[in-house]
């Protein structure tokens, strides 16, 4: 049950056990914050860092990354102030606290491109800082180029490809993502390049579970399926995409990367409108409350496509939906104009697209929005 740490003493092990028992989500994040407060109050530097990194993990893999982006600067500051801090007993495999911080730094680099609020100059500063720290720590630059490739994917295809080729040439070391994760990224690269044969060849080991990630044997395999799904959705090959949607839908993984309900919505908008509508009704509220900018864009883009298709297929101009007053266009009657819903979501997608393009100095997002609606 929800055990509390004793007010009479500070027991980080008990605190950790208590928050680990919670479901992923806001409750767990709140409990981890309490853990951070307790560690801060006791001036327990290893756990001050460790609990913050746990918050980063929870936010990154089971949340919207916002908490991670906010708290990471604190972690780095504490680790810099106390550079000799050892890792806790819960961090096997890390040489010390800074080693773990460097690992999590990679997630920040990955998310830079997904948060338009991070100015381009700052993104580049973070990359440069990570590069300097990696070399100082004795690590090579394979992860640096790996994340640089991901960063430039939607910004500058030329720089992205250059970074990818640099990444490929440097051998692996202990700060690299696991082989399965790297393989998935490489597969995605070839899918995007249109090299299907090469992608399939590289997929075999993951398909056969010879290459797996972490504790869950299925994680890398599901990630592979997600890449293929998004590849086919990008090409508007919905029947192909549906196979993968079906696989991902049935999983009970809590990781946000597999909760692709907006992608399923987009796919079923073309194949099974009834199912698409059910998905919209089940998820409209969480989509409204989304804080992750890149997800806000993709979600609103997909919902826009859905309503566009609905408009085309439906004879009536309105639809009955049970939304609540939290919805900005809330109607007491429950009858909504499809055209109004389309415009509402388009506007949301467009606003975010423009912010991304402004930050990136490109037209990628606006072009993508125009393309999917054409």
């Amino acid at each position, binding site marked *: 049950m929800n055990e509390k740490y004793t007010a009479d003493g500070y027991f980080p092990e008990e605190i950790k056990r208590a928050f680990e028992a*919670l479901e992923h989500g806001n*409750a767990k994040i709140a409990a981890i914050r309490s853990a951070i407060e307790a560690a801060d109050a006791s001036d327990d530097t290893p756990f001050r860092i460790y609990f913050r990194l746990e918050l980063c993990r929870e936010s990154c893999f089971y949340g919207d990354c916002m908490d991670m982006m906010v708290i990471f600067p*604190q972690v780095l500051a504490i680790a810099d102030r106390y550079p000799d801090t050892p890792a806790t007993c819960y961090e096997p495999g890390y040489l010390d606290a800074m080693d773990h911080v460097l690992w999590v730094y990679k997630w920040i680099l990955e998310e830079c491109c997904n948060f338009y*609020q*991070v*100015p381009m100059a*700052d993104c580049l500063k973070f990359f440069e800082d990570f590069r300097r720290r990696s070399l100082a720590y004795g690590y090579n630059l394979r992860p640096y180029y790996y994340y640089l490739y991901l960063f430039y994917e939607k910004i500058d295809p030329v720089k992205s490809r250059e970074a990818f080729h640099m990444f490929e040439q440097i051998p692996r070391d202990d700060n690299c993502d696991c082989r399965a994760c790297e393989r998935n990224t490489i597969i995605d690269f070839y899918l995007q390049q249109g090299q299907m044969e090469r992608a399939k060849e590289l997929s075999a080991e993951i398909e056969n579970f010879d290459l797996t990630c972490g504790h869950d044997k299925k994680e890398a395999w599901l990630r592979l399926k997600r890449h293929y799904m998004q590849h086919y959705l990008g090409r508007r090959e919905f029947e192909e995409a549906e196979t993968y949607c079906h696989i991902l839908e049935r999983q*009970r993984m809590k990781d946000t990367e597999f909760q692709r309900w907006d992608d399923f919505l987009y796919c079923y908008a073309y194949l099974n409108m009834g199912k698409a509508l059910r998905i919209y009704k089940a998820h409209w509220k969480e989509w409204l409350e989304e804080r992750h900018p890149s997800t806000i864009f993709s979600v609103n883009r997909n919902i826009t496509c859905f309503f566009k298709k609905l408009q085309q297929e439906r004879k009536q101009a309105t639809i009955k939906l049970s939304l609540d007053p939290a919805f900005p266009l809330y109607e007491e009657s429950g009858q909504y104009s499809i055209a109004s819903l389309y415009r509402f979501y388009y506007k949301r997608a467009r606003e975010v697209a423009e912010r991304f393009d402004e930050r990136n100095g490109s037209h990628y997002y606006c072009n993508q929005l125009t393309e999917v609606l054409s």
Partner: protein
Amino acid sequence: MGREMRGRRMKDYRFQVNLGGMIEILSDHLYSSPDVYIRELLQNGVDAITGRMIREKEEKEAGRQASEIAGRIVLEIEEGRQLIFSDNGQGLTEEEIHQFLAIIGESSKRNPADGRIRTDYIGRFGIGLLSCFMVSDHIRMLTRSAGKEAPVLEWQGRPDGTYTIRRMEQEQVGKGDMAFGTQVILSAKPGREDYFTEKVIRRLLTYYGMLLPFPILVRVHGKEEQINPIYLPWDGRETNKQELMLFGQMMFEEQFMDCVPLRSESGNVSGVAYIIKYPVLPSAKGSHRIYLKNMLLTEKGDNLIPDWAVFTKCIINATDLRPTASREGFYVDEVLESARDAIEDALIDYIAGIAEDEREVFDHFFHIHKLTLMSLALAAPKLFGILVDYCEFETTRGLQTGYDLRTCAEPLVYAPTEAKYKQLSQLFFAQDKMLINVSYVHSLELLMRLGQLYGLEVHPVDDWSVEDLMEDLTPDDQDDSFAFQKAANRILKAYDCRAELKYFSPYNQPTFYLMDEKILLKRQIEASRSQADSMFFQMLDAFTAEIPGDTAAVLYFNYNNPLVKKLTEREAEADLKILVEILYVQALQIGGFTLHNNELGMLNRNILTLMERGLSDE
């Protein structure tokens, strides 16, 4: 390839193997503990007996005479010094010794026709005997091949990889029905004497060999005792529950609440799941007895027993699942997955069955294992409807079950975090409104599914629900308190907070602080900014800029509270500032919010000021 190598003919080379080193690796690193030497001896013994029986059966089918001597295994113990392990299996010829004992990886269990390992045997890989080097520096083996006038051969192996073979004219492997077969003689190496005591050997025999189909006899000072029952209590006979329960009690040395027979055609898996009588944490590692062909393989049920079945201890025997090389687990393949599904279904059917037909048993079962069953309710849709009625939720009306919630008329409002629940529960309680705490493990998901299943209104507590618990001031009270509200707003602006006056219960609560997610985020960003390197300032400021400018927390002043009423009559803003700030910080503390340094400092300063005034008034 170097220039000098190009174009030259290629020569074949053989890998060189340091046999002593290999034996060390296999015996000290492949196996998890020296305990397994007994398991390996048992395995070889059982396989040898099985081999003899197969051969005898083939002889009979071919019309030739064959003995029908029952298989037996005898362990003669010289306490702390020596163990003689005898079986009356098929024994080995000299050729077989060279072939199977000298070549690591050459298994005697291969079918000569196709080289494949027969499924009748437990062992597969031809490395089991090496485990004896963990407890002994020297293995001496006497063997006589069964069914012929074969000589007694002695094989002696040493860990450096050397061995000898010789004929023993004067020796015997045993008498009567033990006159053929194999005797393995081990002497304790220094530090391993414990493994040659009756107590330890009995323990290991019971642990590994309880289900073996041949009698295992322990002989000490001439006295012999059989330690195993030689049959599976659940197999091929009418299932007697009492007998099964007693068997489980003997195996696990504890009493159980109930037992569930298990069977899967896939993998040829059968056994019993025993329901534990005490609560077990969902994260607890299971302790089972998983047997392969009647020999204990592992205590871990990882791949075979469902993760949620932590309330069971299972005894399972499989004949057609593939063990790993260390023989301490199974390969994950379709056969194993199918067997697991069958076990899962049996347990789910059991729970559904007792829920329907044995209410008292089910109530007791749920009471003990509720946390695990909450997890199971989510994992097994078939059971959700049954289990959720029993699941308990903390509410402002005390503990309510799923049944209570689904039959109550009002919407189900929940606080997503412990802090929010703590903050709001007083208000809700005072108003006799129900608020549900879903910060407990599984609670939120259970509640949402309950809502979906029964078409109930389920939603998180929002600001507007909180304001519903408060009443607006009458026009006269609004007029009277107008100046105070304006002053309070000026004072609280520095803390991103605004003041509101309302009537609410309980009357003795002077204030209530409400902070939404946006303000919480703003405070978190401020905290980060105060500690971070300047490299992150622009990013953090950009996040803050996205939060609407008019976002503010609200400090509600309770006009029902006598202290607040007096406060509204104060005019001097300097005095008001002190009192409002104290109430503000107090409200933060009651609500469980983290205080920033300036807030704590402010509280200290104001309390000291009041104390000074109080003391100077005297």
